């Protein structure tokens, strides 16, 4: 099974996914730059995604905790989810979503010379 992730730069990635894995883990393990600071504990809001509307009915409804954590995200709407809370299952094979810009991991800074 797979998920399709659109990144803030417009690029689209079809990622193979395993049943039982969190979508955040799928994105991270394929090496796409997702912040996911708390590692999947629903304790930050840095894996915010917008799920394509047609997939929304197939998702398990967000918990109260997830809705609360979404307060720390921006441009939240009815398609907003924390993708660490979406668990891959056969019904979600082909899931399409977009990563919110604030969930994009920083590019590594350039190395600066320093006097010693």
């Amino acid at each position, binding site marked *: 099974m797979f998920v399709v992730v659109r990144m803030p730069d417009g690029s689209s990635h079809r990622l193979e996914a395993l049943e039982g894995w969190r979508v955040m883990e799928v994105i991270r393990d394929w090496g796409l730059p997702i912040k996911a*600071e708390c590692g999947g*504990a629903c*304790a*930050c809001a840095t894996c915010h995604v917008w799920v394509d509307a047609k997939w929304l009915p197939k998702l398990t409804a967000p918990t109260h905790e997830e809705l609360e954590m979404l*307060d720390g995200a921006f*441009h939240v709407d009815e398609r907003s989810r924390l993708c660490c809370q979406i668990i891959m299952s056969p019904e979600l094979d082909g899931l399409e979503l977009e990563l919110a810009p604030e969930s994009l991991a*920083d590019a590594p*800074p350039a190395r*600066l010379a320093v006097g*010693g």
Partner: protein
Amino acid sequence: MLLFDLKPYQAEWISIKFAYQTRRDVTGKPMAANGSTTDVIIIGAGPVGLFAVFQLGLAKLKAHVADILDRPGGQCAELYPEKPIYDIPGLPVCTGQELTDRLLEQIRPFEPVFHFGEMAAALGKTEHGQWQLTTDTGLIITAPVLVIAAGGGSFVPKRPPIPGIEGYEGKSVFYAVRRIEEFRGRHIVIAGGGDSALDWTVNLAPIAGSLTLLHRRPDFRAAPATVSKMRELEAEGLVRFELGQPVGLKGADGKLEAMAIKRMDGSTGEIAADTLLPFFGLTMKLGPIANFGLNLNENLIPVDTEKFETGTKGIFAIGDINTYPGKLKLILSGFHEAALMAQAAHRYVHPDKPLRFQYTTSSSELQRLLKVA
């Protein structure tokens, strides 16, 4: 000067259980701004930084610990204070706060000096070859060894993705309130729905020219008593509550005139305001450590696996911030790294004194250091 609010957003305030030296004067300014000297400087008071104090302490090395948060625990305090952790050896389950408290108890005999609310800003070297760390408040700590245990970096406030917001920061947009009086008479929008947003709504409403609380839903993640107080102020007409999210700023030269909002039904609106206080919690940024001249590999610091030393002699990196073949970002890995780091740190601080490896179970010397014998 601190630019942002360090009040815990997601965590209940839990007081530090032990009285540590804080080295601040009555006004909150750090004391001895040009004078702290120690054996080892540790950046980061997360679990790995705290355990490093223990391992260094067994080697009779003193440590100063600087952290940008206002309390110990790092991610354990900021992200997981109430979340159970299941993979600490010997502790089948404990929360982030419990782990922090236990580590503080464990390192107490070694009397570390903590510098909370201090961001490691710059690194230099003295003429005697010692590392000199300067924080954003101007505090300077000098030591022969520097240990970076900074996890994912510094916790800093989330900046709303509003075009041009940087140009308003410091004039109209603030991520912290230092002196309430500076907000007297201002027309304020507070955005967010956590403790910081609600606390400042309640505290600023009585002196503001007008105050609007902007949040995307009618529920809040804040102390119920504060929410009730906000609702009282709303009934009195001192607070206006608006359901929506910030999407734009209007004004010129850093002077805000109005803020554009988007409501949940998709409609848009405008709130006349000269001040915006966004409180959306904290996020991690590597920050000034990126400019310390160390090799970086995708924001991580490569180290050897014998001493966990960086490519720069006398600078070590332990815990989530380092990388090496096979690295696992586990708290227990950081503990192991701290133990080996301490052995090597001793050689820098006391090059003439070999360190005898001893066990706490049998060594009366270590037991004296631990104040149990």
